[in-house]
């Protein structure tokens, strides 16, 4: 009996061991998926008081438009909804949203009071997992800030689901153009990231070019022919006041850019046909020469850490891109493809450089790693140029000009994956966009 017992015990433990091994999880690897915009539903925002109805509707439209414009989201049309939500607080009927294939749901309520105060609260839900994402959030401000609050709601939804940084609540400085092609009138302007609320910053008496907004969104550097010769100007967005940046000998300068801390600028300085890149401290106006070659060095751009610049130079015979430490050194060429490379812009993430590439008679916007590898073209047309990065480094805006006597520029954007190339619907020709930061 004892023998049987111990025998069984041995067997049992062996068996138990075998059973254990069978309980190890099944392992599977998934390497293939799909790339589609994430479907989302935005039911009518509840208006907590009747007067808020219109503003609630407006905010809701902006949220939908922002998310859709990113190319990463796709709206489920309201007429497909099964659940009809009347209030913000009512529970979410997940199966109803699942049934219309909404992967995400945004509910919101809007309230105004008599003294121009506006409150927006919203929640985000993951339908397939049947949970709320994060906490509900409430924004408040004045009714005048309704568009901004809408952009902020869109930013929160976008951030929470994708993991990218925000970018909808931002503004873009650009050049608004009018008149015939040989006598263009140009003036600086600023608008919201969706093209709304456009406001002029200068008159159109002088040609203005290639504005660059500071990292705090408060100032703009640009080139203007106000004196009859290209010079650098600094403009205050709030007041519209501008002043010329005096360069050494008051000689011609153009193509100015801010450093990330806005304390210094880099620009191209022309002297006797020599065009080199200079660095200048704005407070003291002291400048240092960064390149000295008999060739054209222009269109510089700071790295986000402020330590390097990337610029274009034709020193190799045709326009190519070079990086250079601001502290000095030898420019290092990073572009090697077949064609000419110009207007380099360093991504705010620091990992990529966007540029304009010309080859075979076509222009396109591209990106490459900061060492020049993994070059990819994101657009191509008769004339695409002047890329600028969104604050989260995910989207690039640029100028596209059509050909011919009636050719006119407009602003386009494209996702960094190359998807979602789309125009910004503006009422007038526009060029040279410069994307400002997410507003504080």
């Amino acid at each position, binding site marked *: 009996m004892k023998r049987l017992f111990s025998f069984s015990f*041995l067997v049992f433990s062996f068996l138990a061991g075998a059973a254990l091994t*069978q309980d190890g999880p099944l*392992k599977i690897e998934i390497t293939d998926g799909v790339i589609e915009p994430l479907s989302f539903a935005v039911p009518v925002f509840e208006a907590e008081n009747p007067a808020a109805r219109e503003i609630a509707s407006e905010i809701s439209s902006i949220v939908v438009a922002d998310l859709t414009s990113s190319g990463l989201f796709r709206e489920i049309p309201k007429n497909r909804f099964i659940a009809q939500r009347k209030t913000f607080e009512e529970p979410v009927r*997940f199966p109803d949203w699942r049934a219309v294939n909404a992967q995400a749901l945004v509910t919101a309520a809007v309230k105004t009071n008599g003294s121009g105060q506006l409150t927006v609260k919203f929640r985000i839900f993951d339908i397939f997992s*049947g949970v709320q994402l994060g906490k509900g959030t409430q924004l408040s401000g004045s009714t005048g800030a309704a568009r901004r609050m809408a952009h902020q709601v869109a930013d929160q939804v976008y951030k929470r689901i994708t993991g990218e940084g925000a970018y909808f609540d931002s503004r873009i400085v650009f050049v608004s153009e009018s008149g015939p092609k040989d006598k263009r009138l140009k003036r600086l302007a600023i608008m919201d990231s969706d093209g709304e609320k456009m406001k002029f910053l200068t008159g159109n008496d002088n040609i203005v070019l290639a504005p660059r907004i500071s990292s705090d969104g408060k100032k703009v550097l640009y080139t203007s022919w106000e004196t009859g010769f290209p010079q650098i100007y600094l403009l205050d967005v709030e007041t519209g006041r501008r002043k010329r940046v005096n360069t050494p000998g008051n000689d011609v300068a153009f193509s100015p850019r801010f450093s990330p801390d806005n304390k210094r600028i880099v620009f191209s300085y022309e002297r006797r046909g020599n065009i080199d890149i200079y660095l200048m401290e704005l407070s003291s106006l002291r400048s240092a020469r960064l390149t000295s070659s008999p060739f054209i060095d222009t269109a510089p751009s700071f790295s986000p850490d402020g330590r390097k610049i990337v610029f274009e130079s034709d020193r190799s015979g045709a326009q190519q891109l070079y990086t250079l430490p601001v502290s000095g050194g030898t420019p290092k060429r990073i572009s090697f493809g077949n064609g000419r490379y110009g207007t380099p812009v360093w991504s705010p993430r620091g990992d990529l450089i966007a540029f304009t590439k010309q080859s075979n008679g076509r222009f396109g916007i591209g990106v490459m790693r900061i060492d020049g590898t993994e070059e990819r073209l994101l657009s191509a047309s008769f004339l695409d140029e002047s890329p600028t990065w969104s604050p989260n480094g995910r989207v690039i805006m640029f100028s596209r000009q059509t050909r011919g006597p009636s050719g006119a520029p407009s602003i386009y954007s494209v996702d960094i994956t190359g998807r979602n190339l789309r125009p910004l619907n503006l009422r007038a020709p526009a060029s040279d966009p410069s994307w400002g930061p997410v507003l504080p």
Partner: protein
Amino acid sequence: MSIGTYISVTMHASMVGWLLLNGNFESTPREISVTEVSLVSAEMFDIALNNTPPEVEASIETAVAQPPVEEIAPKLSIKPDAPVMDREQPVMVSPQDDKTPPQISEQPEPLEDLVVILPSELISPTVSPTSPDVLEISLKPKPRQSNRITSKTVAPSEPEVDIGDFTRDAVSPQEMLSSEKKPQTATAPEASTSEIITEAEKPSKLPRVAVLAPEQSVRPKRRSIKIKLDKEQPKQTEQTIDPLAAALNEALTGSTNESESEASTESQKTVIEALAPGTIRGMQLAISPCWNLGASSSAALSTTVVVGMELSIEGKPLASSIYLVGYEGGDDASAQRAFETAQRAINDCGAKGFELPADKYSAWKKVEITFNPERMRVR
């Protein structure tokens, strides 16, 4: 066959025989909770059917891995007479109180009580010997499994269906052997891209990843995950499983013939290995269409996540059991986003249950899926 294997076989056989005689293998009456249908709205019934978990607390955003979830819903629901009776209608908790940013706590009430007991919770995690069919299973990977692109079209909702699908062909050992080879080689190229392990491993080879998950804190660790596992595994598993299966086979068919048990051992070997690649491929094909990276950040597209979960006997993922085992590349934030994308894929394509053989439930009750977006990144 070595002397060790022989001893092992004998001991297993005697053990199982003893258990059988004692009646341990009879199915126990299952405790099923009864939901008062009349008091449950249509939406909630759907939720119960789809096994939607209750809304978890707001902290879901910060709680990356969800092993603690095991303490919440599923365990709670094991008490059959618990919340079901009390909460009959969706109840709003403190709906009027908050004037400040709304909290999530108002939401969960209506749904918490609906994670009813799943029969699978009560099944003991051993191979169910209820049907002899288990042991005589067609070796060919089911064409149905390999052709399935989306799980939506197939919905075996009862375990019985799965079992019944397997034919009871008496296949000769030789045939088994040769057909064993075929599935193996045929799927080898596939396996080269997706590292697959068969269901069981030797205890010493239990992947650290799986074991660590429940013990670690909820935060995902940035560490290199051993995704690639040695191909030797299948061979080694033969030694451990086969004796058991062989013993079962022997016990059930009453055969004690050594040569026959040897043949059965071989057949068990082939059964388990042949089953895995087709089944696994089916699950990959089922999940892929729902794994949507279209709204993923660039960082998340560089993050590989390993997601663990439990499946019910119907092959449905228990949403509350889905947790982040670990990740590679990216950072905590991108891992969390990648995890959510994976979670959506699992919940979406798994809603109707994956096609998995119920008789092998213990082999796939726990699953770990590695979501590797490398091929999906912009080239």
